[in-house]
């Protein structure tokens, strides 16, 4: 009797419940917390982000405030990081520089992500000629050395912060497209996608609501590593005179301005913004590597 009763009850589908998902998230957080290098990187990111946000509150001077009476001072009590050739406080400029660098990184990665992911997804999902054309285009973009291509793009649009963001963003597109392509190719054959298609879910919804969330892990890793790359490339562009224009405080531009003073021994003009760039990139690289180790043990970076 009892047996017939159970058969009448609709079979409980073994679905990943909210509990399972929460448990997964907990394991993920615990594994990431245990990765000391990743946490160190996360620490750098948090510190720079906070400093960037509260720069106007903590910076002792304005970033473009010139004071010719106290120019080229070595680090001292009034100017912890010294002053530059216009008497501007290097510490304040480094703090404000964090704003530009992190903001540039975010926008550039957002551009790469928002263009690359749909392109890769569409190419894999529809395949055929569209897919071929898209992926071939991505291969061609990858055939250019990244810094050289971003220089060419920035030079074509004209120097400036926006063009640096666009240039770095465009150069990052193919990586995201290829990742999303690979993920979509394998996910689209899964049963749950077939099922969604069978009940008439629109392609757009399948691609962005069903496939994208499952492809997010490697994309997240790429986005984190891409932040480091974007900060480095954007500051290189500024160093070469293709990014932010003076007097705006930006790390790469500050190093370019301090360049001629290094031979005469004024090391602080170059050293501090450089440490800013290096620690910010280190932060994103460490966190990115850590995320990759946790999210995909097969891709472990030689641990």
């Amino acid at each position, binding site marked *: 009797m009892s047996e017939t009763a159970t058969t009448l009850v609709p079979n409980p589908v073994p679905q990943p419940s909210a509990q399972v998902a929460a448990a997964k998230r907990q394991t993920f957080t615990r594994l990431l917390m245990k990765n000391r290098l990743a946490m160190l990187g996360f620490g750098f990111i948090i510190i720079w982000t906070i400093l960037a946000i509260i720069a106007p509150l903590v910076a002792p001077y304005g970033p473009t405030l010139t004071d010719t009476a106290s120019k080229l001072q070595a680090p001292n009590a009034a100017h912890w990081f010294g002053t530059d050739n216009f008497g501007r406080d290097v510490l304040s400029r480094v703090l404000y520089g964090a704003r530009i660098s992190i903001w540039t990184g975010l926008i550039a990665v957002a551009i790469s992500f928002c263009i690359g992911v749909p392109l890769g997804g569409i190419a894999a999902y529809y395949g055929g000629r569209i897919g071929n054309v898209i992926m*071939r285009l991505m291969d061609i973009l990858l055939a250019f050395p990244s810094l*050289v291509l971003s220089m060419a793009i920035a030079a074509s649009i004209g120097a400036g912060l926006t063009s640096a963001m666009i240039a770095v963003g465009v150069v990052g597109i193919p990586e995201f497209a290829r990742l999303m392509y690979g993920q979509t190719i394998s996910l689209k054959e899964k049963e749950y996608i077939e099922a969604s298609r069978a009940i008439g879910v629109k392609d757009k919804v399948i691609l962005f609501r069903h496939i994208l969330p499952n492809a997010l892990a490697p994309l997240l890793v790429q986005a984190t590593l891409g932040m480091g790359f974007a900060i480095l490339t954007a500051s290189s562009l500024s160093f070469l005179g293709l990014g932010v224009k003076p007097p705006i405080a930006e790390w790469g531009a500050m190093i370019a301005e301090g360049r001629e003073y290094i*031979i005469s021994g004024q090391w602080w003009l170059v050293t501090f913004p450089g440490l800013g760039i*290096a620690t910010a990139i280190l932060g994103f690289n460490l966190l990115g590597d850590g995320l990759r180790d946790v999210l995909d043990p097969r891709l472990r970076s030689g641990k």
Partner: protein
Amino acid sequence: MIPSLLGIVIITFILSRVLPGDPAVMMAGEQADDTVIENIRRDMGLDQPLYMQFFSYVIKLFQGDLGMAYHTGHTVAEDFANRFPATIELTLFSILIAVLVAIPVGIIAATRKESIADHISRVFSLIGACVPIFWLGLMFIYIFYSILGWSPAPMGRISGDLNPPTDITGLYLIDSLITGDFLAFRSSLAHLILPAICLSTGTMAIVARMMRSSMLEVIGQDFIRTARAKGIHEFLVISRHALVNALIPTLTVLGLQFGYLLGGAVITETIFSWPGVGGYVTDSILAADYAPIQAFTLVSALLYSLINLLVDLIYGWIDPRIRYE
């Protein structure tokens, strides 16, 4: 290969046509009157439809015509020919340094996993990958020139009071050796060493890391255990059995690094006033002279593709199992 070369040319062409300024105005100067500008525009073919412009662009490319560099007054091709040897010398020497350091370091790190040497090499490869090249170069100049006085002034390839060696290969180091001019050899080595180390750090870090992880993977495989069980000396196991197999992924990374080196050369040459193509590109950026920038973009993409093709071919030589139809 051919479609991607065509793609590279198309993209460079597109980049050269979305310039902010009108090239004709730029050539004539801001004050030129309309008829002069109109004439220049007709001479340059800018009044033609876009696809005709593209065809003449491609035809010119085949003739080796990369345009005029207004800020030097020469054709870009001439300037490139004069300056490429310096860049090649710098890049080759950087690759050499990177490989000579990174591969042994990677092997040691893998064979003595978790030892002090391993930890040190990993810290260095972490740092090497995130230190901006332009900052590192300036710090090198500060430490080795300004403070210690060990290196010559960061100006050019050879001391100003020495004659460059007779031009045979265009590489000062090799030319001075061939001609037996040891004074020139010493001077050019002293000038080359800092920029080359500076340019090589990023590559060194990545190659060492790749070498370590692929070596670790190979060492864990059965055939290595078999080789050891047969009593082969550990040195031979590593050098003859493991190394060859671990080299392939490392070689891929090295080929990809070539693109990074071309970009890095622009920055390194600028910092060390190295008279190569990279410094020339920076000068062009500052002079708002676009033809050299576009030409460099094109040439470096072509070179980069060729190098990676070469790397693919070397696979077949290292690993006979890989064959190309």
